[in-house]
């Protein structure tokens, strides 16, 4: 177990270094001269040269990477071209909105997906099973922004029940979080169903039935506990796809999170923001994956041997 954690812990910085290298190289490959962008459209050549010096763009690439990595570790991600504010402050201001949306979406996805998967497994081949599976297949195939547009058209424009854009009150959370929850909900429902079905055929479940344990208690404590591992895997390892979904969802709903910040930054060629948001998002995903792997190793003794 210790060796497994040590191996994973050692891999973590290697992955993060690789991620920062890719982001660094990509940003340097962006079309246009960042110094000219930073200095503004009417800047003189002297001003652009001064900016080149200030940004350190006249130094060698390894030197530039070293100072970029050094800054990133200390929480300095540069200055936004558009707002002239530190990128870290911009991200810090937007991050709670994205995290709030992600948590609400996960609560919805688990709160509905797990019971739906259990019901499907208990009534295997019956109509509840078929209904859950059809909905889950549709949920995994739908474009979430399409769902968002349909919901906005009905509930915000036609009925006027919910706000159309932005994050003004708790009501603003409803449509974006449902939109974001659909895909993980579908995946969790399918996963719960298949792992419940597998667990239910195990000997110890049959023993529990034979002992006269009530079916309800078998489902909830015996079977669900063992079905939890794949569910944690899905939640932890699919965090990246949730962040990807958040980028699109936030743009549809004009939600003030880091996903929309990224899309806006691409439009304005605000490269320090692109760089900062990408780094923060990927670091978050890497950390979530790591936590999920650790949790799985704790819960499943079989993995510890590797």
């Amino acid at each position, binding site marked *: 177990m210790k060796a497994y954690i040590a191996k994973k812990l050692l*891999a973590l910085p*290697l*992955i993060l270094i*690789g*991620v920062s290298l*890719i*982001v660094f190289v*990509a940003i340097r*490959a*962006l*079309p246009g001269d960042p110094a000219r962008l930073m200095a503004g459209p009417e800047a003189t050549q002297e001003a652009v040269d001064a900016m080149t010096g200030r940004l350190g763009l006249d130094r060698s690439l390894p030197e530039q990477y070293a100072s970029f990595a050094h800054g990133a570790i200390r929480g300095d991600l540069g200055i936004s071209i558009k707002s002239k504010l530190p990128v870290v402050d911009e991200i810090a201001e937007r991050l709670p909105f994205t995290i709030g949306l992600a948590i609400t979406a996960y609560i919805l996805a688990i709160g509905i997906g797990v019971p739906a998967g259990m019901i499907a497994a208990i009534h295997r081949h019956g109509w509840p099973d078929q209904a859950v599976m059809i909905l889950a*297949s*549709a949920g*995994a*195939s*739908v*474009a*979430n*922004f*399409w*769902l968002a*547009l*349909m919901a*906005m*058209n009905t509930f*915000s*424009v*036609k009925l006027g029940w919910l706000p*159309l854009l932005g994050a003004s009150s708790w009501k603003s959370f409803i449509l974006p979080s449902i939109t974001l929850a659909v895909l993980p909900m579908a995946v969790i429902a399918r996963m719960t169903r298949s792992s419940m079905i597998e667990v239910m055929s195990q000997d110890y479940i049959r023993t529990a039935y034979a002992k006269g344990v009530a079916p309800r208690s078998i489902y909830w404590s015996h079977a669900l506990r063992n079905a939890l591992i794949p569910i944690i895997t899905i939640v932890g390892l699919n965090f*990246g*796809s949730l*962040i*990807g*979904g958040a*980028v*699109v969802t936030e*743009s*549809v709903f004009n939600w003030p999170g880091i996903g929309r910040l*990224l*899309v806006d930054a*691409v*439009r304005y*060629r605000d490269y320090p923001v*692109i760089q900062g948001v*990408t780094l923060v*998002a*990927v670091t978050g*995903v*890497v950390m979530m*994956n790591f936590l999920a792997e650790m949790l799985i190793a704790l819960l499943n003794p079989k993995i510890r041997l590797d």
Partner: protein
Amino acid sequence: MAALETGMETVRRSWLVRSLRWVASHRSIALGGLLIGLIVLAAIFAPMIAPADPYEQDLLATMLPPSWGHPFGTDDSGRDILSRVLYGARISLIEVVLAVGLAVILGVPLGILSGMSGHYLDQAIMWIMDILFAFPGIVLAILIVSVLGPGLVNLLIAIAIFSVPVYARLSRNLTLGLKSQEYVEAAISLGISRRRIMTHYILRNAIGPIIVQSTLTAGTVILSAASLSFLGLGAQPPLPEWGAMMSDGRNYLGLNIWMSLFPGLAIMITVLGFNILGDGLRDLLDPRK
């Protein structure tokens, strides 16, 4: 003579019975194949089925609801939405072929090489794959598109790059499994060249799972391409790409839902078809069943 005809009849009926039985026991493949078949037919015969030119504007007939003349209505430029959705099927299928094709061409050789060589080369390739895999697909695609510039081809390159690790990991695992098979060990001891072993002994036997994965990736490709085109980073107007069409449609919520409704339904049917087909193919190849 009568006996012969009865014989023919039996053969014919048994062929029909066998086909029906196969369909009944492979419902996923049949249903998924049917959906994808319909989309492929729509793409091929779009010029014949479409009631109008997908680019032809008619400023006297904008924002019309569905009618006999325009079954899906018309958009803000008076273009026929049904025609645009049908031509959009062409774009989506081209997206799948290009993005999945590129991801397979890059990922599979990397994975086989990784699995065959082991040691440092294996670790280096897998390190790069782990790094790419750490990026949320959409975020990596946005980063690549901002370097290459918005556009459908650049978007497909971006989607292919974020799909490469999936194929590299899969073919590495398959290679590791196949490498220890006796016939591969025999080939190695007979002195057959490594290149021939990789192509004739490993790749040929890994093709099944790679096809299953490609079918399952197809849905992701369509959804990602539509999402990024919707954000304005992929296909540009007036191209009838489904995501780009919805990007127009979002400006007319409450006025014209048809511009968003039908392209979104087309996406769902296509992705659903690929997913169901992929699930069916996976079950078919799964030796446990």
